[in-house]
C-alpha cells in the first residue's frame, strides 16, 4: 500500500538516503531496522511530509505524496509516532487523543457556536472513542490527568493512542518501546498485535530485536542510506551483512538476536 522508489535525501553534502526502494504491503507488521544514523527516521519524515525527498517518489495507495502537506497526508490515512516523544504536554490525555480525531469531526461554525445537536453528538462520540483508545493502551484511568505528568513509558503509549485516533490505515511507529522495560514491552507488543488484527497496517522502526522479530512479518535493513537486506525475521537474523553492520555477535549466553534484544 506504501511504495518508495528511488528515494534520495541529502542534508548539505551528507547523503542520508540513496535510492531507497521499499514496498509495504497491506496488512500485518513491517519492520525497518539499521544502525544509528542510517536514515530510518528520515524515511518516516519523508513519508509523512515533514521533509521533502530530493529524488524519487513515494506513493500511498498509488497516490503520489510529493508536495502534500503533513496534514493532507495524515488525512489520507497515515499516522505516526515520534522517536523523541512529542505529546501535547499541557493537555489532558483525553484531549490529546481527541486532537487526533480533528479531521473526523465535521460541524460548521454555526453548529459550533450554537452547540447544535450535531455538534454535541459528534463531540460525545469523539470523547467516547478517545476513552476507548486510551483503554487499548491501558491509560483510561488517567484520562483526565495532564499529559506532562506521565512517565516516559506512558507517554509513548499516549502517543500511540493519539496516532490511532486519526483512524489511519497505515501506522508508522518510530521506536515505540524505547525506554520501556520488558513487562511493558510485552504489553505494547500485545497492543500492536491487537491493532494489526483490527486491520491496521503497521510500519515500525525499532532497535529491540526481540520485539521486532516477534512482531514483524517482514523486515528491511537500512545501512548508510541504502537497503541492504529485506526478508522474514529468521532470514534477517542470519544475514551476515546485517550481523556485521547491526546485530553484532553477542558473546553472551542467549545468542545474537534474543540476548541483547532485551531493550535498546
Amino acid at each position, binding site marked *: 500500500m506504501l511504495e518508495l522508489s528511488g528515494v534520495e535525501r541529502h542534508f548539505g553534502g*551528507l547523503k542520508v538516503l540513496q535510492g531507497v526502494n521499499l514496498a509495504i504491503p497491506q496488512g500485518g507488521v513491517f519492520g525497518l531496522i539499521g544502525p544509528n*544514523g542510517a536514515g530510518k527516521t528520515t524515511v518516516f519524515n519523508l513519508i509523512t511530509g515533514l521533509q521533502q525527498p530530493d529524488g524519487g517518489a513515494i506513493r500511498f495507495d498509488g497516490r503520489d505524496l510529493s508536495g502534500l502537506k503533513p496534514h493532507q497526508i495524515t488525512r489520507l490515512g497515515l499516522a505516526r509516532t515520534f522517536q523523541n516523544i512529542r505529546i501535547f504536554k499541557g493537555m489532558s490525555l483525553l484531549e490529546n487523543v481527541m486532537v487526533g480525531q480533528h479531521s473526523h469531526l465535521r460541524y460548521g461554525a454555526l453548529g459550533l457556536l450554537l452547540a447544535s445537536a450535531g455538534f454535541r453528538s459528534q463531540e460525545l462520540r469523539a470523547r467516547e472513542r478517545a476513552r476507548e483508545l486510551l483503554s487499548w493502551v491501558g491509560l483510561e484511568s488517567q484520562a483526565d490527568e495532564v499529559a506532562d505528568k506521565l512517565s*516516559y513509558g506512558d507517554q509513548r503509549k499516549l502517543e500511540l493512542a493519539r496516532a490511532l485516533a486519526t483512524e489511519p490505515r497505515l501506522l508508522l511507529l518510530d521506536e515505540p518501546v*524505547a525506554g520501556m*522495560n520488558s513487562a511493558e514491552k510485552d504489553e505494547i507488543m500485545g497492543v500492536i498485535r491487537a491493532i494489526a488484527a483490527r486491520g491496521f497496517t503497521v510500519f515500525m522502526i525499532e*532497535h529491540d530485536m526481540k520485539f521486532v522479530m516477534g512482531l514483524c512479518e517482514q523486515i528491511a535493513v537500512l545501512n548508510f542510506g541504502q537497503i541492504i537486506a529485506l526478508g522474514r525475521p529468521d532470514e534477517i537474523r542470519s544475514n551476515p551483512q546485517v550481523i556485521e553492520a547491526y546485530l553484532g555477535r553477542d558473546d553472551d549466553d542467549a545468542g545474537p538476536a534474543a540476548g*541483547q534484544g*532485551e*531493550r*535498546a
Partner: protein
Amino acid sequence: MSTPQQDQSQLSDDLAVAAGASPHHEEPAHSSQLGQPLLQVRDLRVAYGQIQAVKGISFDLPLGRITTLVGANGAGKSTTLLALSGLVKKAGGSVDFDGQDLSTMAPHRIVQSGVVQVAEGRATLTTLTVHENLELGAYTRRIGKAEREAEIERIYQLFPRLKERAGGLAGNMSGGEQQMLAIGRALMAKPRLLLLDEPSMGLAPIIVQDIFRTLREINRSGLTIFLVEQNVRQALKIADRAYVLETGRIVLEGSGQQLLGDPKVQEAYLGH
C-alpha cells in the same frame, strides 16, 4: 567510512583511558579501599509538588564497582539520579560522597567534585557542534587545548561515527548518535563517579553490546559507575550490586547474579 565494528579490545582500552582510568587519574582522598562506599545515600526523599517520587531510599555505591538501579517506568530512577546531581530539590535525606555532603551543594560543585551524569534524554546541546559538546565536557577541568584535543581524539576512536560528524550540529544527529555523544562528553570530565541514565536507550544492538562491554572495561580500570537501566538483564549481568526500585521505594537488593536468579525479578523485569 568505518563501522563501530572494530577491534573491540583496542576500543575498550581507549575508552578506559578516556574515562580517566589511566595511571595519572587522581586517587580518591578518603575511601581508597576498593569496595568501600564512595557514595552513601540515606533516606533520600524527593517530591514534585504533591507527588512523592522517591520515598526515602538508602543505598551505597562501593568504590570501583558497578551498581545498578532497575525498576519500571515511573519508579523514580531518573529522579534519584537527578537528586544526586542536585538538579531536583531533595525533600530530605543525606548524600555523602567521599566525605563531602552533596545534599546541599550546587549542581556545578557536584560535577567539579567528580560526580558526572549522562542524563535521560541525553541533554546534548543541539545548537553546538559535536566537537564543541565534547570540548564542554572538560569544562570543569583546567587543561590546555592540546591535551583536550588529544582526549577528544580518543573519544572519536571510541565512537568513529562522531568523528565523521564532528563539525555538525548536535541537534541534527540521529538519536543514537546523540546518545554516543552524551556518553563521550561525560567521559571528557574524567569523573570519579559516573551516573548513567539508560545509556542504551535507542541504540542499535551492536552499539549496546559495545557500550556494556566498555562500561565494564572502564570500571575495571577503576571508575565507579551507577547505572540506571531498563535493559535489566544486561544491567544485572555487569553489575556488582543491584537495587530494585518500585514506586519510589527500594524493594530488593543483592548482587547482580542474585537478582538475575530471583524469581520475582525474572517475572517482573526479565520476561520470558
